């Protein structure tokens, strides 16, 4: 079973996260656009979604709202870790299980993921 699906449009950030988490033994895939985000989650059925807030075409907040509104309740409750580059406590993150502000310390990311997947 897939551990993590990451939705992130910045390839360098996605690459860094993938490198860090794969070394911890998590199985992980990437989706690079806001468009089709929910479908990608439904297809992959990950145990955790790492979701960027500012995505082209469809924002992370919208994807999260659609996910939580899904009639399949088990699917709708998929844990979500939100990444945000906005300085303020960004709107649209309230339904996320955890929020991590960019830039982050690698240790914080690993600890958070470890706890969420425990």
């Amino acid at each position, binding site marked *: 079973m897939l551990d993590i699906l990451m939705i992130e449009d910045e390839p360098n*950030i996605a690459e*860094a996260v993938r490198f*860090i988490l794969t*070394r911890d033994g998590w199985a992980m895939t990437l989706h690079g656009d806001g468009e089709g985000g929910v479908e990608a989650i439904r297809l992959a059925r990950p145990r955790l979604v790492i979701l960027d807030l500012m995505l*082209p075409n469809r924002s992370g907040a919208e994807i999260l709202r659609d996910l939580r509104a899904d009639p399949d309740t088990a699917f709708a409750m998929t844990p979500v870790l939100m990444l945000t580059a*906005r*300085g303020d406590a960004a709107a649209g993150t309230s339904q996320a299980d955890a929020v991590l502000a960019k*830039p*982050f310390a690698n240790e914080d990311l690993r600890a958070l993921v470890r706890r969420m997947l425990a």
Partner: protein
Amino acid sequence: MPFETLVAGSLAYVALMFGVAFAADRAAARGRAGWLDHPLIYTLSLSVYCSAWTFYGAVGYASRSGLEFATIYLGPTIVFTGAWWGLRRLVRIARMHHVTSVADLISARFGKSNRLAALITLIAVIAATPYVALQLQSVSLSFEVFATDAPRAAVIGGPAGGTALWVAAGLALFAIIFGTRNLAADERHHGVVTAIALEAVVKLLAFLAVGVFVVWGLAEGPVDMLDRVARAGRDPAVAEGWLLRPDRWTALIVVSGAAILTLPRMFQVMVVEASDEDRLRVAGWAFPAYLFAMSFFVLPIAVMGQELLPDANPDLYVLTLPADAGQNLLAFLVFLGGFSAATSMVVVSAIALATMISNHWLVPAWLALRRRPGGEDADRDLRGLILNARRLAIVAVLGAGWVYHQASGGSVALASMGLVAFTGMAQVLPAMLGGLLWRGANRRGAFAGVGLGSGLWLALIFLPSVGIGQMPLLPGGIDPLAFAIFLSLSLNTLAFVGLSIFGFPDPVERLQGLSFVSAVEPVRPRSPARAEDRAEPLLAMARRVWGPDEALRFFRAEAAAQGKSGYLPDPTPDFLTRLERRLAGAIGAATAHAMIDRVAGGVALTVADLMQVASEARRAKEETRRLESARAELARTAGQLREANDKLTALSVQKDAFLGQISHELRTPMTSIRAFSDIMKTPDLSEAERRNFAGIIHQEAGRLTRLLDDLLDLSVLESGQARLSVSAVNLHDLIGRAVQAASATRPERSFTLDRDMPSEHLGVITDADRLLQVLINVVTNARKYCDAERPVLTIRVHRRAGGGAVIEIADNGRGIDRARQSLIFEKFSRLNDPARAGGAGLGLAICREIMTVLGGDIAYLPGQGGAAFRIVLPPHPAAAGRSVGTAGSP
């Protein structure tokens, strides 16, 4: 007749008149005026219309112009028989408004304008002075007929200053004694009216006696008389004068009909002296009958005079015919009749004019003079002042008449001066009738009508009649007098109606107009019987205005001052005046006056008070309107503030969004740098991995630097502090350098360049570095985004009309969606763009700012196949200012 007998007889007659007037005044004062109020007395007093002009002059007129003299009687007859309801209405309205003269009537109707009254008084004085002179002349002429030993037929008028002076002085005395006894002008002059009625009888009897003497004494009865008249009519010399002139007839009937209404003396006896409108029931038929009797024998006397005394003055035939026949007693009776006609006219005219002069000239002037320094004279008793002003005016009117008589040498024909006066006063008629019948009539119209009409009258009729200028000579035998009458009256009416239609009456006028036209009288409130009953409501009213405490304090103090205990003073005039003044401070003078009158009940609420209230209400309305407009102003200001606030809020939202985007743009490369520098610390990394990650860190650091550069650039450009280093630039070189610099972007793609080299050699004066920055940005974008299989970049340069240049750069890719075209010049518009290539999305925003600073413009060119931009350059930066759009290009 011996001179002494004549003087003695005359004096006896004068004494009789004084006696009758005195007795009538006494009877009226004792309240036994029953028989004095008889409609016949009223009717006889109207005969003041028949002055010496009619008594002597009608015969002279007839001998010169035949039946035309009858027009002077026809006008009043038509008015009295045909318009008796109008006369009744006139009397009713005049009495309702306590009108004192014709000038007062017009001014009361048109918003109580004293200037209008003063103007009408002026016309009346100008018209009356020669007319009064004429009466004095007739008396002195008739006196001379008796008093000289010269052949009577040869008596032609000559100056008889002595007689005229004595007559004038006596009449002034009579008018002063019986005309200025009491003040309120609507209290009638019983003595004068009764004396005039007696004189009316005398002059009618005298005239009828002469007529009878002529028909049965000199001629042999009516048949012979008619025969003589017919013979005279066949005499060609006479017949020409006797010709009926329709134009003159119409004009003279109109003018004499108007005169019966507007002549000051007629208004005095007919309207002011009338106790009520019912007298007109009798006068309506009796006065025309009197006029008929007075005119019955005119033509026979004229014909007989021409026959027997061809060289004598026709104006004196009435006197000279019996005198020549040795009928001394009859002649003396005629003399008394003429004397009566002259004196009654002079006395009534003097009283009427004196009222007008004192009310509209002297008293207003005196009040205006006295009011200025202090104002404490305003409440002084004005009775003495007004009576003395009237006495002075009587003396002045008679003095002016005497002076005029002396100056004119007594040579004026009797008839002409009467007509001059008639035509002058007729100018008041349109305003009078309009005021009574038409609510829309207004003051400006009345002013214009009376002013224009009387101006024409002065120029065309009055001045020529006293030898200044002459009446216009008209072609086609049109009569100049008739022409002048019609011209002045019709222009008068036209001005009056025109200005009334195109102007608006003020509220006072409107209410007066309503009161005049519909003849409604304000209701008089009843006055409570006991003093306490009147003081109590006054206190209640004062409470309403001042509040209970202050009102009680004022009333208690007033009661104490009157020596009374408690809080209710007697409503004495003093107290009422003080109360009114205090109230006026709070609610305005007119309102205070009206309220006190209503509550105190001593004086009725007059129309004038209502008018004042109305005009104060109008002021209040204006104040309300002013407040309303102030409120609207405030609302407008509040709206502007709200708008400004909205704008600020929007700006704040924009600023927040901008800061959020900057934060995102900065944190994104920092995230990569931080994550990979952490990863670099991992000990077991391969060399390839290490190189790869170092490359990413380097790349993201560069991105961060570019972003900060762009932000700095943009803030400098937007703040307007960008320094330009202006120089002459060849566009060909600049485009070459831009293409060269952009080729570093996606170098793996080979672009085909389509350039027209010769046309690129174009010089402009601009900042070369800034323009290069724009060109590089546009060309780089093309390299980044053009997705055509064989990408082609087309660059064209045109000379711009009026100097400067236009550069168009287009690729052959997909272009930009219509929806996005308007967004690409906004900051961070690159966000959400999937085909991004590492920029922060500030490039085109910076380009736009640069072009604005250079005085040019950059715009997207839709419909070119691929993405296309047009860059417009002015000949030099200052030439076009900061905002030249593409609209300015060809």
